[in-house]
């Protein structure tokens, strides 16, 4: 063997080794991150589904801003800072919270007031069931329900493992283009390898993007050192990069706040019709009041919006965010690509399917690890049994937990105190409880039963929704309620997918190697076994 060829073989071998072990170590958490992250592409929609009593008509940003400011003037006119998140196409309500002035006597740490959701048309606080909504899946997918900052660090560690696994996987997989369209069923280990390859290779641009940009979303936390190298005071970096204003002091001279409507319109004009998303008002009703309006990231790839600051006393424009340089634009676009806020309905579903492909890639990778090491007849070693059980716990039981979160939203009384926490608990009790119960069953049965239970939980969602709300499937069809209709449809589709999985898991029992259905001669002629063996390494 020539030196170059042996070097290449050595590289491929070491990369295969790394790929296997990194993928295994991070696989279970990555599966959960991918699945809940995929659900998060519908974060506002899930929240809306979880508050079925709300029926809000869309309202223009200007009106929402006016009603919100009126509400805050009436409730807390002397606060230090007001935050107003305006409604948009996907979120119908206005979200506000206020930061009170530091209390000199109490010496208590400055705490922000509770967040309130307003009806954008009237400015009245909304009366809906308490829930975390889609925010829960979103937070879980990078905080993993662990105390800060451990969840984020663990998620970051898994993301860097994923990035490394992607690179080593590409180097290992030498037949990318030969096997590009190849997926063979009923061939045991070979099928899992096909499925892993196809889900990885066909959506490779997405996987690479989502992993790298995932790291970028929290890069200030993961990699703050370049900031320290360039800025004696990190605050200056945030001012440079994100345009956060240095805190202005109140003058103590009362001047009524300018009407917000014209300022919103002015900002929108500056952005050629761009939509304002967030309004931050500092020192309201003071001569030094400022009104900062941030642009929505929902219409452009770059998720870092521009901002304009006006004087709250005179309405004059004070500052405007500078046009971003290439690096800032790159970071903003990476963030935008990860969040997908720019995506309209078709592209949003595309994102969702790509996320599922990523989930499938991680899941098939985990299953491939066991498929390769399964020896018929022999008692499996401890590590094997551990991996097998963790696979069941993650792949088959997590979906049931997610369904339980949604089911509990309908089953826990709407007025119950602390119900939002109970919904979250329902997810984890179901998930881990099912995983524990699955230990009592033989592996094959555990797969079938856990997947079937997950499927049943999702299938129950449209029924429970119909029984507990007036927005059931038939009402949605009759009333053209697209959100609830799509939600029910998605739940049925997910139930079908999980049910299919349960059915397949039950079938494989007879013999993984036997060819139940001989592949059609049209589909794929057999590949030389030696070449297969080389690739399975």
């Amino acid at each position, binding site marked *: 063997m020539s030196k170059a060829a042996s070097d290449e073989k050595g590289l491929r071998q070491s990369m295969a080794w790394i790929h296997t072990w990194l993928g295994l170590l991070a696989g279970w958490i990555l599966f959960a991150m991918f699945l809940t992250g995929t659900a998060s592409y519908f974060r506002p929609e899930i929240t809306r589904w979880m508050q079925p009593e709300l029926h809000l008509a869309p309202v223009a940003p200007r009106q929402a801003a006016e009603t919100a400011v009126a509400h805050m003037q009436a409730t807390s006119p002397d606060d230090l800072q007001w935050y107003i998140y305006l409604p948009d196409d996907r979120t119908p309500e206005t979200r506000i919270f206020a930061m009170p002035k530091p209390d000199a006597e109490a010496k208590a740490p400055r705490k922000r007031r509770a967040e309130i959701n307003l009806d954008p048309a009237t400015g009245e606080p909304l009366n809906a069931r308490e829930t975390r909504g889609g925010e829960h899946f979103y937070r879980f997918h990078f905080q993993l329900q662990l105390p800060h900052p451990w969840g984020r660090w663990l998620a970051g560690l898994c993301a860097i493992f994923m990035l490394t696994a992607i690179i080593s996987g590409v180097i290992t997989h030498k037949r990318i283009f030969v096997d590009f369209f190849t997926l063979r069923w009923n061939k045991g280990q070979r099928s899992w390898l096909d499925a892993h390859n196809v889900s990885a290779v066909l959506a490779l641009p997405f996987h690479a993007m989502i992993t790298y940009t995932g790291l970028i979303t929290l890069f200030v936390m993961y990699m703050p050192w370049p900031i320290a190298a360039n800025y004696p005071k990190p605050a200056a970096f945030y001012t440079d990069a994100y345009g956060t204003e240095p805190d202005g002091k109140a003058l103590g001279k009362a001047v009524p706040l300018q009407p917000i409507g014209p300022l919103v319109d002015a900002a929108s004009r500056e952005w050629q019709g761009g939509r304002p998303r967030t309004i931050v008002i500092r020192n309201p009703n003071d001569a030094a009041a400022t009104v900062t309006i941030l642009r929505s990231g929902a219409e452009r790839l770059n998720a870092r919006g521009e901002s304009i600051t006006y004087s709250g006393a005179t309405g004059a424009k004070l500052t405007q965010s500078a046009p971003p340089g290439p690096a800032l634009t790159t970071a903003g676009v990476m963030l935008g690509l990860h969040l997908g806020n720019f995506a309209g309905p*078709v592209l949003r579903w595309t994102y969702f399917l*790509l996320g599922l492909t990523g989930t499938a890639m991680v899941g098939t990778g985990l299953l491939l690890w066991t498929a390769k090491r399964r020896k018929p007849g022999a008692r499996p070693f401890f590590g094997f049994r551990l991996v097998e059980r963790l696979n069941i716990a993650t792949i088959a039981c997590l979906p049931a937990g997610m369904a339980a979160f949604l089911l509990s939203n309908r089953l826990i009384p709407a007025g119950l105190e602390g119900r939002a926490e109970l919904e979250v608990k329902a997810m984890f009790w179901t998930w881990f409880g099912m995983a524990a119960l699955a230990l009592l069953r033989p592996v094959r049965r555990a797969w079938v039963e856990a997947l079937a239970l997950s499927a049943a939980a999702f299938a129950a969602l449209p029924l429970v929704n119909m029984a507990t709300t007036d927005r059931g499937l038939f009402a949605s069809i009759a009333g053209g309620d697209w959100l609830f209709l799509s939600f029910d449809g998605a739940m049925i589709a997910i139930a079908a997918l999980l049910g299919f999985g349960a059915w397949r898991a039950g079938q494989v029992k007879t013999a993984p190697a036997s060819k139940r259905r001989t592949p*059609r001669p049209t589909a794929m002629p057999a590949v030389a076994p030696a070449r297969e063996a080389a690739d399975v390494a």
Partner: protein
Amino acid sequence: MSLETGLISYAALVSLALAVKKHRPAPPLPAMPSPRTARLIGWLLLAAALIVAIWRVGPSQGLVAWIWQMCVAGALFVLLQSWRSRLALTLAVPSLLLAPLLMMIGA
């Protein structure tokens, strides 16, 4: 809406698959280009899908929509092809016909 990009990409990927010997169906389909032509058609269709996407949503979002929808089209094609190979290949025709229809409705 920009589903056209995905539909054209699907046809493009089918065409590219037909250019590979092991993916060509054994009793040939009623109308099937030669491998060389299939490859050429495939690449041209991919380019067309990109142009359509850019035309619909502009260069930056168009490029993103094109890549993402191409990935999903590929995954769907492979899944379908592993189950009903001939159906998966034949579907290229309706999906290619549907694309201009959607464009006309949308434009």
